[in-house]
């Protein structure tokens, strides 16, 4: 399969903090790639740099043939990458349906009217609880429901690639399993490419094809998901405390 996203020697700074150091990674079309690492390793920074919220100090980011390195978040959404941020960040005062519709903000409203309505139906079919709560303020949803809404909102842009930042954070194990099942389904059914950041490294590696391990902003290890799951260092550092 051909490479869809690639980062080459990307550096990101917050003032004097060097949060991502010469990171190089790639994601192929249709892959689920896990990005794992401890707290403060730079995972969120990496995703935000891909989606344009952070500007890289150096390096290049390529999406298909397109150079994304200094594009705005808006241009990057239009190019086909949707980012589901850490903490979900739904628009809590707005209704569930408005949140989903805002996900389609970059699409031509009149030309795509029918397609947007259809996609809305697809989201409701995928997450029936969102249909039940369509008129409710997003802030009143449970954590799991908000996560589904955040994913649905990102999908409404019809992305080719999804960036997911800790979708399981703070959720009950059963809910996390449900969300991960949806992620696999999105890839299998829609051919979506996924870059997944997860604290819960084991469940992430279980659904991933490949993975990268980040430490202090550096990629220190990479390989197939099976290799990483079997790796002693990974087991000790990231898989050991799975039952917390």
């Amino acid at each position, binding site marked *: 399969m051909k490479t869809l996203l690639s980062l080459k020697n990307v550096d990101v700074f917050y003032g004097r903090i060097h949060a991502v150091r010469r990171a190089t990674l790639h994601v192929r079309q249709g892959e689920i790639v896990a990005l794992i690492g401890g707290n403060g390793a730079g995972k969120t920074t990496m995703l935000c740099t891909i*989606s344009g*919220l952070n500007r890289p100090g150096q390096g290049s980011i390529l999406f298909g043939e397109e150079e994304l390195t200094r594009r705005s*978040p808006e241009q990057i*959404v239009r190019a086909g990458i949707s980012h589901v941020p850490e903490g979900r*960040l739904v*628009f809590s*005062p707005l209704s569930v349906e408005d949140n989903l519709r*805002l996900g389609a*903000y*970059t699409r031509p409203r009149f030309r795509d009217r029918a397609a947007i309505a259809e996609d809305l139906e697809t989201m409701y079919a995928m997450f029936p609880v969102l249909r039940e709560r369509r008129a409710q303020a997003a802030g009143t949803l449970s954590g799991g429901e908000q996560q589904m809404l955040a994913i649905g909102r990102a999908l409404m842009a019809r992305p080719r690639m999804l960036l997911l930042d800790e979708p399981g954070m703070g959720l009950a194990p059963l809910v996390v399993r449900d969300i991960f099942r949806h992620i696999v389904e999105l890839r299998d059914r829609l051919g979506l490419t996924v870059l997944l950041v997860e604290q819960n490294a084991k469940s992430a590696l279980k659904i991933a094809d490949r993975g990268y391990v980040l430490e202090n902003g550096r990629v220190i290890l990479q390989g197939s998901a099976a290799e990483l799951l079997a790796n002693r260092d990974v087991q000790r550092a990231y898989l050991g405390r799975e039952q917390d």
Partner: protein
Amino acid sequence: MDPSSLLQYLITGLTLGSTYGLTALGFTIIFNTTGVINFAQGEFVMLGGMMSVYFTRVLGLGEPVAVVLAVVGATVAGALVERLAIRPVRDCPTINLIIITIGVSILIRGLAMLAWGKDTHVLEPFSGDRPIMVLGAAVMPQALWVLAVSLLLLAGLKAFFSGTIHGKAMLACSHDPKAASLVGIGVQRMVLLSFMISALVGAVGGVILTPITMTSYDVGIMLGLKGFAACILGGLGNPFGAAAGGVILGVLESLGAGFVSSAYKDALAFVILLALLFVKPSGLFGLKDTKRV
């Protein structure tokens, strides 16, 4: 007191209060998208009135055309303020931006004085000045204009914010700019839009009020302060609180002027405001949670 003079004061209060409410709405719209209190809001109100005067007097345009042009002019001024004064320093802390708006207000006032002098001007009432008698109170036709236009504008804003995708995008920006960028909303464009809408709303207030209270280059100071007071009274950040705060302020002021003394009219607004803030710091309709991220 006799009922007809009470009614008279109420109507005067509602009229004044509507324009305070519009000014307060202007503050709210910018505050909600940027967290900035725009102290040049009163200047947008002044520009609406002064430009109407200029277009009718100096250019000899008919009043309807002049009024529309004045509102358009003030809206452009709002866009310029955002582009020239706010955007270049958008990453600065909010407090710096607020201080910049104070500077902008002084600049606009100065330019208005240079261009149009220090005189006080009047504008012809839109439909004559023969009062309509209602239950013994004399209602000026202009007061009806003020009330009707304010209500219309309020309804228009409501329709924009809760009925259009761009309105919702602006709400989304004010709630969470980061998440808004991630769905592809151009946050800076929304900030520009909020300055234009605020200027428009303020200018409309200025235009409809001028036939009643007259105007000069410096009316923006007091109107801005009153609008700001109305905003705080209603609860900062809540558009309908702002409109209601304006009306309440206008009515109390008018009753105070009528029954106590008109000498203390302007001070009254601030006394009420302070009293309220002691009792309920988040304002009448303020949310408990006033945290902004």
